[in-house]
C-alpha cells in the first residue's frame, strides 16, 4: 500500500473530534426526538457502546499488529521468498472479501458475541499490516542491507537497526489503514450481538428514528477520524524523528 500523505499534524483536530463527539452525545441524549430513541440514547448506554466499540478496535488492532508484524518479518526473509509471494497473493485476494462477509463468516463458524467480533476484526486487519510489513522490509535498498551484512552486523541487529526503522513509515501506514478499517467494520459487529456504535445505526434504520441513526453515524465517523488523525500524527513523528 502506498504512503498516505498527512497534511495536518496539530492537536487541534484531535480536540475537535473529541469535543465534537462529546457535544454530539450530549445533544442527542438531551434531544432524543422520540420515546423510542430516548430509551437507547442515555449517557450510560452511550458509554457502554463507546467502550464496546473502542474495546473491539483496540484489542483486535493490537492483536493484529502482534501477529502480523512477526509474520510479515518472517515472510520477508530471503529463504521464505516463495512463501512471501504466496502469502502476498493470498492477502490481496483476502482484501477483496468484504468486511461484512468476514464478520458473517466468523459468526457462522464461531457463534455470537464480542469474541467473535474481535476474531473477525483481527483477521481482517491482519491483511494490511502483514502486507505493509512485508512490502516495507522488501523495499529496503539492497545496497543498504548489503552494507550492513558486509560490516558484520548480526542478522537480528540488521533487522532491528536497519530494516525495521527503514520500513517503519510503511508499516505504520498499514497499521493506520487497518485501524480505520477496523472502526468501520466494528459498526457491523452489532449484527452478531457485539454492540458498538453500529447498534445505534441499525436500530435507527430499523425504526426510522433520525436521532438514533445520526448519533451512531456521527459518533462512529468521529471515532474513525480521531483514530486516523492520531495514527497520522504518530506516522509523521516517526518519519521526522527517525
Amino acid at each position, binding site marked *: 500500500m502506498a504512503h498516505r500523505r498527512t497534511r495536518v499534524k496539530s492537536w487541534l483536530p484531535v480536540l475537535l473530534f473529541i469535543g465534537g463527539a462529546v457535544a454530539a452525545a450530549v445533544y442527542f441524549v438531551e434531544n432524543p426526538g422520540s420515546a423510542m430513541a430516548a430509551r437507547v440514547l442515555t449517557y450510560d448506554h452511550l458509554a457502554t457502546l463507546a467502550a464496546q466499540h473502542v474495546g473491539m478496535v483496540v484489542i483486535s488492532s493490537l492483536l493484529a499488529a502482534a501477529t502480523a508484524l512477526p509474520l510479515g518479518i518472517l515472510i520477508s526473509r530471503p529463504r521464505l521468498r516463495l512463501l512471501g509471494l504466496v502469502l502476498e497473493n493470498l492477502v490481496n*485476494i483476502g482484501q477483496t472479501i468484504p468486511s461484512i462477509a468476514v464478520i458473517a463468516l466468523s459468526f457462522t463458524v464461531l457463534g455470537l458475541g464480542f469474541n467473535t467480533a474481535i476474531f473477525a476484526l483481527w483477521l481482517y486487519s491482519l491483511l494490511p499490516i502483514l502486507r505493509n510489513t512485508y512490502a516495507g522490509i522488501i523495499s529496503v535498498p539492497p545496497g543498504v542491507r548489503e552494507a550492513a551484512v558486509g560490516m558484520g552486523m548480526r542478522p537480528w541487529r540488521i533487522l532491528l537497526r536497519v530494516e525495521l526503522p527503514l520500513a517503519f513509515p510503511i508499516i505504520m501506514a498499514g497499521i493506520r489503514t487497518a485501524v480505520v478499517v477496523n472502526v468501520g467494520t466494528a459498526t457491523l459487529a452489532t449484527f*452478531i*450481538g457485539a454492540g458498538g456504535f453500529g447498534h445505534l445505526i441499525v436500530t435507527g434504520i430499523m425504526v*426510522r428514528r433520525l436521532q438514533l441513526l445520526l448519533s451512531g453515524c456521527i459518533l462512529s465517523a468521529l471515532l474513525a477520524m480521531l483514530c486516523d488523525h492520531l495514527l497520522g500524527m504518530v506516522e509523521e513523528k516517526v518519519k521526522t524523528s527517525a
Partner: protein
Amino acid sequence: MKRVMSKYGIIWLISLLLLLPLLSGCSGGQAAQAPGAIDKWVFATDHEFSVRPDGLPELLKFYGFEFDEVRIMDLGVTYGALKDGQVAAAMGFATDGRIAAFDLVNLEDDKNFFPVYNPAPVVRKDFLDRYPELEELLGRLSPLLDTETMISLNAQVDVENKDPKEVARQWLLEQGLIREEASAPTKGKIVVGSKEFTEQLILGAITIQVLADAGFEAVDSTGLAGSEVVRKALTGGEIDVYWEYTGTAWLVHLGHDDPLTDSEECYNLVKEEDLARYNLVWLAYAPFDNTYTIMMRKADADALGIKTISDLARVINEGKN
C-alpha cells in the same frame, strides 16, 4: 515476475474456492448443558424489538421481571443463539419455521401483552383505483395463509435452505393459483415491497408471482430493512404494495399506545384509519398471527415447568431472591 504473480493469483483463487466449501463443513454447535441448568438469564433480541413501544422494555414492565443481560443482534440470529445455548431465552416470530425445527417452544402470552399481527396486502388508494382487480387477485390469497401453512413455508426457507421465490412458486402451483408458464406482461407495472425477514420475503414472492401470472409487470423490491422503511416506501410511491401486519400499523404507523388483542377488531380499526389518514387500502387479512413471541429451548422449559411468560417471570424472580 508479473506473469508469475498472476499465475499464483489464479492458482490461489482456485484453491480458495475449493478450500472454503470444505471449511464450511466444520461449523459446529456448542455442547449442550443439562436441561434447566441456567445460571444466567441472557435474552436475545433484534434491534427493533429492543426499542419498540410494544417491544421488550414494556414487556418486562408488564410482566414485572428483568433479564440478567440483553444481547442485541440481527433478526433471525436469535433462534440459532437460543438453540446453541448462547442465550437462555429469545424473541422471535410465532410463525417462524425454526421454532419446531430447533426444538424451541413459544411461551404463552398469558396476560395478552402482544398485540395481534395479522398480515394483509396494503396498497395506496389511487393505485387500487387504477387497478381495481388487485382487490380480488390478492384477496384470494389471504384466507389460504393459516399458521400451519406459514410455519411450513418459513421452515422450507430457514431450515431446508430453499430459495423463498422457489418456495412461493411451489406453494402457488400446489394451490393452483398460478400456471406453470407465466405469460408476457400485458398490464401495468407494480412494484412489490417487503421487509427483510423470511416470511416477508415469501409473502413478497407470492405476491409477485400472482401478479405476474395475472399479466402485470411485477417489479421485485423485496427485502427492505424495517417496518418504517417499507411503509415510507409505500406512501412515497417507491413501492406499490406490501404485506403489513395489523398490529404494527396500529402501534407504529398510526401511533396508538394501546395494543389490540382481537384480530377482527384490530383489522377494522386499522383499515378505517389508514384509509382516512393516509389514503391506504388494506385488502383481506390472513388468519395467521405473526406476533412476537418469547421462546425457550423445549428441554429447559419442560425441566423448569415454564409454559407461559408469567412462569418465566416467576422463575427468574425467584432465582434472584
